[in-house]
């Protein structure tokens, strides 16, 4: 009796300190923490119940290899969403960059030239979007929708048929993999299969770190938060809101360009259907990662785990034998619904508590 009471008391004090800790978090940190917690919980459950691939580190690296470009565009989208905007052109721009670079390389272009081309296309889209949205005050949805149409249309104008890159340098880039033997596993035939990571993943992680630093430690990054939190206040606090908004779209455009290049390094071919639906996946990643479309709340670390959560769900669905093609997106939708409602409830509860 005494013992149970002791345990109970201890449990209660732990609960109290946890709730105090949660209370001390900012909205951004809280939403991100929830996502990270759910991701690890999900992954651990998958490891325990499904085993198989989930027990190998390569599973994580595969997820990264396949989603490097998604991670990059999600970073850009997170910036735009923190600033209170939206950019739905990111997938289309990625696709356009892939096609242009492949054609450029196949027509005797150099690797450096192709990188500049990719960055140039991305920047150009960001520039036009930013100008129209912040200086002409047109709704971001319509502007970036037009951007999306334009990029998709240009992609097919360049080539309707899939184009395989025949450039040697690119092929080398594509096939270069960073090998990490100690994270490998022993296959059934007794051979060691080392973990392999593509260069694109390194680029993606670099982008992630840069954007993280930008948002956390640079003045510009904090201005994004201020603008998204309360535009009127931001103006009163002496922030150049128009320029800040312009820059958010410019960065998003630039990251779409980088994403396109990474996509090309992964697939090595341009195709009109490349990166189809990527914009919505990126929005979903950001939302799951704790970014609010209303602006002011979000973090790229959360976005990263958002992407990983989405991917893990898909892998779990496949691994648990739900092979019918529809289950992946139905569970994704369910997951999204769960996160959106959870955030709405959590933030609502917090706001109520504050009001009291």
């Amino acid at each position: 009796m005494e013992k149970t009471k002791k345990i109970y008391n201890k449990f209660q004090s732990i609960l109290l300190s946890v709730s105090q800790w949660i209370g001390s978090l900012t909205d951004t940190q809280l939403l991100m923490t929830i996502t990270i917690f759910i991701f690890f919980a999900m992954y651990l459950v998958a490891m325990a119940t499904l085993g198989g691939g989930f027990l190998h580190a390569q599973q994580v690296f595969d997820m990264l290899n396949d989603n490097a470009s998604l991670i990059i565009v999600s970073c850009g989208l997170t910036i735009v969403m923190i600033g209170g905007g939206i950019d739905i052109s990111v997938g289309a721009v990625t696709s356009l960059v892939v096609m242009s670079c492949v054609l450029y390389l196949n027509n005797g272009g150099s690797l450096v030239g192709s990188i500049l081309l990719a960055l140039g296309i991305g920047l150009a889209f960001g520039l036009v979007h930013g100008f129209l949205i912040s200086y002409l005050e047109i709704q971001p949805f319509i502007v970036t929708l037009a951007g999306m149409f334009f990029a998709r249309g240009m992609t097919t104008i360049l080539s309707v048929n899939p184009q395989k890159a025949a450039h040697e340098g690119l092929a080398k880039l594509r096939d270069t993999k960073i090998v990490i033997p100690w994270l490998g596993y022993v296959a059934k035939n007794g051979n060691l299969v080392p973990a392999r990571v593509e260069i694109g993943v390194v680029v993606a992680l670099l982008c992630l770190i840069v954007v993280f630093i930008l948002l956390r430690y640079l003045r510009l990054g904090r201005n994004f938060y201020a603008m998204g939190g309360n535009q009127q206040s931001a103006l009163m606090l002496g922030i150049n809101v128009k320029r800040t908004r312009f820059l958010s779209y410019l960065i998003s455009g630039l990251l779409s360009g980088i994403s396109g290049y990474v996509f090309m390094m992964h697939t090595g071919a341009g195709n009109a259907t490349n990166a189809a639906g990527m914009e919505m996946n990126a929005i979903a990643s950001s939302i799951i990662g704790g970014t609010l479309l209303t602006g002011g709340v979000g973090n790229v670390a959360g976005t990263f785990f958002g992407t990983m959560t989405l991917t893990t769900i898909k892998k779990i669905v496949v691994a648990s034998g739900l092979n019918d093609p529809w289950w992946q997106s139905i569970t994704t939708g369910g997951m999204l619904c769960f996160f959106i409602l959870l955030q709405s409830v959590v933030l609502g509860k917090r706001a109520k508590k504050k009001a009291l």
Partner: protein
Amino acid sequence: MKKNTKSFFQGGLGQLTIPLIAIALLVLFNLIRDPGFFEIGITHNNDGNIVLAGNLISIINGASELAILAMGMTLVTAACGGQDISVGAAAAIAGSTFVKILKSAPEINGGIVVLAFLCACIVAMLFGAFNGTLVAVFKIQPMIATLILYTCGRSIAYWINGGATPTISSPIISALGSFIPGIPVPTPVLIVVCVTILFKLLFHFTSLEIFTQSVGINQSAARLNGINATFIKLLSFIILGVCVAIAGSIGVSRLGLINHETLLIDVEMDTILAVAIGGNSLGGGKFKISGSIIGAYVIQMLTTTLYAMKVSSTDVKAYKAIVIVLLVVIGSPVIKAKFGKLMEKVRGRMQESAAKGA
């Protein structure tokens, strides 16, 4: 005279000015390019019916689903200040339901078709209510709320038909998708007319219009005047659900099959565009359904014009984007203000010179 032109631009047509100018420009452009572009021919179709044909007919016919969706979307936009991006996916679900019921019947007759359509309606309204609840009750922005159905809607459609893309062949269905024997006008066009009349009747026999606008413009004042804002928002999504069911059923009937991947693909973007081109604010509030309908025909006319210029169906988007940007730039508040200032300057100059002359 001067006063007349002023009121013509400022008050006379109001928000319909830009879409009407767009249509006029497109017509003019086409007439210059090919004087015979708008000729309407009379031909016999495969079933031996006498039907109308020509670019104009194909524009009006092709815009049917878009026009119907745009009407519903206008209501959602006005009430909630946001857009439903799941209409294409929801239409696929409705279409799949439609086909599923037809397929499960031993023989397709009029009654079954009506039953199938009603089932599609109910399903689409339920999904609309789902979106509407997230928006109206949980206060989630429409775009985020409908992203859920956008993500998984087409897969649900696929699931309904067990992973198949079944075809249906029946004279009733093909009549719905193309022509009813003896009537030379395409059936979808007739359906658009019916839906438009239904909306007119809805506005005539209920207070939906004024309530929706009040909620969209000033929710606090609307509440103090006794309007139930939650109900109005939910209702707008349910009405959009009906529109989705109609559009989905037309889409299925046109092809005689359901393909969850391609049925009304990307229609959500076009629908939102139609609403915006129609001069409705995407931030909600005052709306004109007629603007959105005209917006839908602007988009379709643009598409058809580009097709006629031998632009391939996949490339059309790029040109469409340019026209959209031009339209929104003209309509942008900054440009309008600048233009207004310029006009004032010109007027001032004219008055000055007139004074000098006198």
